[in-house]
């Protein structure tokens, strides 16, 4: 209990501000220009080019990164098991939009030749909804044991959760479901093919024309952006910042910690599920090998590189890393080792290259490439690192 006045001990105050960056009008113009460019881009590319495919994957990663950013960036809960929601979202497609459950003949909102196939075939929009609900439940399940933990300890628990889901996916072909002659997953063999997406008023999606896939995932990106920005600027968004900076003060101001954190987990997970369901449909397979721990790290690297908490930074980071991974390393720089007289595949070094990039960014610009101002100030001022153990009961 200090009696002395702490006023004298604080250093001369520095002036911080959340202002800066682009003026609002310029920001809007830039956004509209980029959005128009993104919408028109497929018209400039060959409809089955690998570059267009890389764009689709990049946009799917943007959704993933935006979802993880809600948990890690907004609420400050380090999540190393985000791949779990990719998996759950993908299995929503595997279970409800493929021939996986051969005994069932369920058709909801689909038409055309899938009506002749066995299995459960559900319209993609319903599958998306199912993926979001399943993932939100998964997010709450992962959130519950972490509520009494903080920082690194949350990371360990979430990492384990991601691994549990992966192991279930791998061994799910040995787990018989209580109904019918079916298993939980198809393990490493994968559920393939899955239904091609059918949407109202649009022709069936095929692998021969990638443009509808591109426009769909772009639309999903826009919806996700809308949702996360609205939430960031809401009562819930303020509560997330409050618990990130000081849980004790937040709780004492009437912010329910459990509910607020579980909302972050559930929203982040649901967004991850959307991306997972899309990717499963696009890649036409749900395979347990897709759900490796390195996927979680990859998405985390995107948001740290781009700028934790910054929506636009996260979009940028996701596009950048995704393109380095799927375009720059395998296509552009593939011949570099050979031209140096070295015998190895550059793709094998992928994670080494990401690690190196991340290291450079962390040294030169620890707040990320397009930082969020609050996070930047927290980093320089050490806000939110204070002692805050107390006996809040869950």
């Amino acid at each position, binding site marked *: 209990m200090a009696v002395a006045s702490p006023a004298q001990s604080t250093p001369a*105050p520095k002036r911080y501000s959340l202002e800066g960056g682009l003026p609002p009008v310029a920001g809007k113009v830039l956004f509209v220009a980029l959005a128009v460019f993104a919408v028109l881009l497929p018209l400039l590319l060959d409809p089955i080019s690998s570059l267009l495919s890389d764009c689709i994957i990049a946009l799917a990663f943007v959704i993933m990164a935006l979802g993880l950013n809600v948990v890690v960036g907004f609420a400050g809960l380090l999540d190393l098991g985000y791949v779990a929601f990719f998996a759950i979202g993908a299995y929503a497609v595997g279970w409800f939009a493929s021939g996986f459950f051969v005994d069932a003949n369920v058709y909801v909102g689909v038409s055309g030749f899938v009506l002749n196939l066995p299995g459960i075939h559900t319209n993609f929009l319903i599958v998306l909804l199912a993926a979001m609900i399943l993932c939100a439940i998964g997010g709450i399940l992962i959130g519950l044991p972490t509520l009494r933990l903080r920082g690194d300890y949350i990371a360990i628990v979430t990492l384990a959760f991601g691994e549990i889901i992966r192991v279930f996916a791998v061994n799910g072909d040995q787990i018989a479901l209580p109904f019918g002659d079916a298993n939980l997953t198809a393990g490493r063999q994968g559920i393939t093919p899955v239904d091609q997406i059918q949407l109202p008023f649009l022709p069936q999606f095929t692998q021969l024309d990638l443009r509808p896939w591109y426009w769909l995932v772009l639309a999903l990106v826009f919806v996700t952006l809308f*949702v996360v920005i609205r*939430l960031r600027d*809401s009562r819930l968004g303020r*509560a997330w910042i409050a618990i990130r900076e*000081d849980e004790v003060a937040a*709780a*004492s*101001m009437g912010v329910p910690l459990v509910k607020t954190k579980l909302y972050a987990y559930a929203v982040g997970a649901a967004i991850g599920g959307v991306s997972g369901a899309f990717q499963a449909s696009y890649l036409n397979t749900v395979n347990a090998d897709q759900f490796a721990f390195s996927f979680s790290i990859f998405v985390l690297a995107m948001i740290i590189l781009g700028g934790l908490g910054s929506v636009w930074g996260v979009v940028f980071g996701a596009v950048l890393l995704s393109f380095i991974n799927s375009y720059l390393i395998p296509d552009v720089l593939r011949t570099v080792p050979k031209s140096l007289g070295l015998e190895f595949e550059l793709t094998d070094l992928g994670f080494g290259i990401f690690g190196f990039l991340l290291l450079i960014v962390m040294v030169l610009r620890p707040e990320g490439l397009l930082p969020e101002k609050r996070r930047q100030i927290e980093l320089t*001022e050490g806000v939110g690192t204070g002692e805050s153990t107390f006996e809040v009961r869950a």
Partner: protein
Amino acid sequence: MTSSTAADPPAGGDTASRAALMTVQGVSKVFGGLTAVSDVSFTIPSRSIVSVIGPNGAGKTTFFNMLTGLYKPTVGRITFLGKDVTGTRPDLITKMGVARTFQNIRLFGTMSALENVLVGQHARMKAGIVGSILRTPGVRKEEERIRVVGREILDFVGMPASSFDQLAINLSYGDQRRVEIARALASEPKLLLLDEPTAGMNPNESDRLTQLMRRLRDERDLTILLIEHDMKVVMGVSERVTVLDHGTKIAEGDPATVRSDPAVVEAYLGKQG
């Protein structure tokens, strides 16, 4: 006067005749082998200003933390407005109408003064997740309302309008104290707990704060529980003073009585030969 007289009416004053807003019965807190607060009983009458004083390490802040739900009492019972709130979660206690400030200011540093006060209104808001995404007319209206209310409260505690949008870490020490009180007031409390609000303030600022406390009681019908080291503030503003030493209550009563109590003098100055 020892803790065994806890249930007796306080000496002097009409405070005892008023309804008790909060009642504390035989509360103790033990950390491992250390008893921080031992068998303290205590009532806070409605619309009063009461103080808890005591030397450093007397258990004042621990006592506060139990009243606001941050700590669960090892034994004892706390009731607020007739309801048992022993071990109730801090956010629920806040929602019931108890707000607090902290000894070492705990503002949300990267939020502006106004945003801090908006967080203070969390418990009084309704916006849900779907409404926030769709930004329904109700949510929009609520956001406008809390900004109006937030500015009013900041104005009430004496913040200049030019500082409303200033980040909390940029504010002067005195202004941070003021914003913290504003943030607590934003939760529309019936009972306001101030943990050493004048620490680090000059006499002039302390005087203004004392006036603010009186205004809060008289204009806003608030009850205030104060932990304070500045005896001038305590004696000037409190209707009743409770003295803690080594976790136990050693005296209670009106300021004049407490000041002359030999046990209190001994606790502060040591035994007189």
